[in-house]
């Protein structure tokens, strides 16, 4: 696992039913592209987050494929409609097989 990976998400505490809300996510990750070389000229192996998903109460909201050109500490912002109270679950998939998870609940105001 890449060192010191830390996810961070921002979800409003409450929303109106049917309202589109903005979700912001950030994860600290080097996103090593696999195209750089070290001082000895050896290729530094690729190590990136290759997939990001968000589910709301078990239903998929977004499923994104991340490519090596995405820079360090990827920030992903998107909108979702909230039909009911529940929990957003965020998942990041690392090249090395690690999975980082974070969840936030939201209420209906």
């Amino acid at each position, binding site marked *: 696992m890449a*060192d*010191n990976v*830390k996810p*961070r998400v*921002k979800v409003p505490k409450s929303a109106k039913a049917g309202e589109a809300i903005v979700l*912001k996510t*950030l*994860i*600290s990750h080097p996103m090593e592209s696999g195209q750089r070389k070290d001082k000895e000229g050896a290729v530094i192996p690729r190590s990136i987050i290759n997939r990001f998903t968000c589910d709301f109460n078990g239903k998929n909201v977004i499923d994104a494929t991340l490519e090596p050109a995405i*820079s*360090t*500490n990827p*920030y992903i912002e998107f909108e979702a409609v909230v039909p009911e109270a529940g929990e957003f679950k965020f998942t990041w998939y690392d090249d090395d097989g690690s999975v980082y998870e974070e969840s936030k609940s939201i209420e209906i105001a």
Partner: protein
Amino acid sequence: MKPRRIKTALAATALFGLALTGMAIADPVDDKLVIDGVEIKTTAEAPAHLDGALPELISGWHFRDTETRAMQADDFDNPGMIFVDRGLDTWNAVDGTEGKSCASCHEGPESMAGLRPVIPRVDAETGKLMNIEAYVNNCRTTRMGAEAWNPKGGDMTDMMALISLQSRGELVNVAIDGPAAPFYELGKEIYYTRYGQLELSCANCHEDNNGNYIRSDHLSQGHTNGFPLYRLKDAGLVTAQGRFVGCVRDTRAETFAIGSDEFNALELYVASRGNGLAVEGVGVRH
């Protein structure tokens, strides 16, 4: 924003020609930094000891683009805050032979409030000029039985971000008299000494030319109140001394080492030039 600025500059040059040389075309932007409803003091009256060297103190935040300024105004959009979260994990993690974490002695990181504005300072016990890196490593080696961290490594910058954030909004107020006086004098001498093949002193850029462009970037007054800060170019945290290395290197000089007596003194002197500006916790710059 940018294309308009260039157009204005070109038009002005066409009108006044060389008469404009030396006039600032990248003046700091008039704006207010408000984070979570709290205004952070980003301009201040210059302290008396500067003797008129700067007409007014202006944080580097004012010299950056609209998007960069907005990023710092929101604690989620500020990419530096993720390192604060990481620092908090480290704060609570046991390390070293004594089986202690930072929290074992200091409890919550809130106990560090008020430290950042007065750093660097001469430590009453050792008589040495200490910055946050020195205090953290002193704790690690003498109390925790752990290895000292690299002063610009990730663990250290995360911890510095966490500690600085506790004093966000408090005004920088480093002591320059008494035991700090010789360090202040040394720092001042370094600040005004020209280094490198380009023969540039700190003052040449940050005192004489703040508000002008250096190649494509604005020159600020070079205050340290925003450090450690997230630099978009580096996609990571940069410490004040890390920035000193960059600046001196750019004059094509051999730099002093991080943690050297010279850079510690310079850190004190530069901090004292910003006495009165608020600690920004984790600033964002490009």
